[in-house]
């Protein structure tokens, strides 16, 4: 159990750093979505299913969609 949780946390950290360094903003948004998704799995493991549902539906789905629409209307690549 502790190994799975540590692996998930390492994956979460990697995707958070990736969201910071990606120049393509769509990829950065997908990496941020990954952070939310893993956070919701971790919430579930920590016996907080209510928070996990909120995180998965808002953090991983709706926020990603809103960011992608905003990027489509502005610029995709960061200088």
């Amino acid at each position: 159990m502790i190994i799975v949780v540590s692996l998930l946390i390492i994956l979460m950290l990697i995707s958070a750093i990736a969201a910071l360094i990606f120049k393509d903003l769509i990829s950065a948004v997908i990496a941020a979505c990954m952070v939310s998704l893993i956070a919701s799995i971790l919430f579930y493991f920590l016996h907080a299913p209510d928070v996990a549902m909120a995180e998965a539906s808002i953090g991983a789905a709706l926020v990603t969609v809103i960011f992608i629409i905003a990027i489509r209307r502005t610029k995709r690549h960061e200088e």
Partner: protein
Amino acid sequence: MRKIFSVILLIIICWGIILSLYKIPFGIPKTKVGEYYLNKGKEETGAANIVTSVVLNYRGFDTLGEVTVLFIAAIGLGAVLATLKKKGKRKVEQASLILYTGCRFLFPLILLFGAYVFIHGHLTPGGGFQGGAIIASAFVLVYLGCRGKRINEVSSKTTESLGGLIFIVIGLIGLAIGGHYFLSNFLPKGELNTLFSAGIIPIIYIAIGFKVGSELAGVIDNLFEES
């Protein structure tokens, strides 16, 4: 020079955080209120899900504030985007057949799941906010798959206002006849672990579910209208 300065500042902030945190014993509850909710929550509110009993019964007024914050955010976004609105219809590209069919197949199922989540908020994990977000994500699927379909703005605004109104009216009725505080439970609590239990909690969660769902769907609609 600036980099060295920021590193020094970071070290000072880290040191301050470490100094203030290292003596706190983590994992030991320092207040009695959490224990009280865990022990007495089920009897006092009649809701099997203790999170729901805290969110809607003990801390119902805070939930009203939360709903209001979401409402103000949606209104603000609508006001900002209304100034940019383009006139006239633009040509929309049709989605592929697979996306179209999948959207038409999945949309009612996702709506059903969202409704289940907020109707059973007092029994299983989840509640109005989560169910509303799931319903809004069903509308995202419609905007992606069946392009050109829009939600009816008048009915969505009406649903949203009715949800907020039901919340406040039930809270005020509780203040008037139930007890001495906002949102006191004036309906019979019923049997634990059945659908018709916990008094006003399921009614309020249904209202919040409709309100949050139509609000977030309205936000998505505002954003999609221009892209």
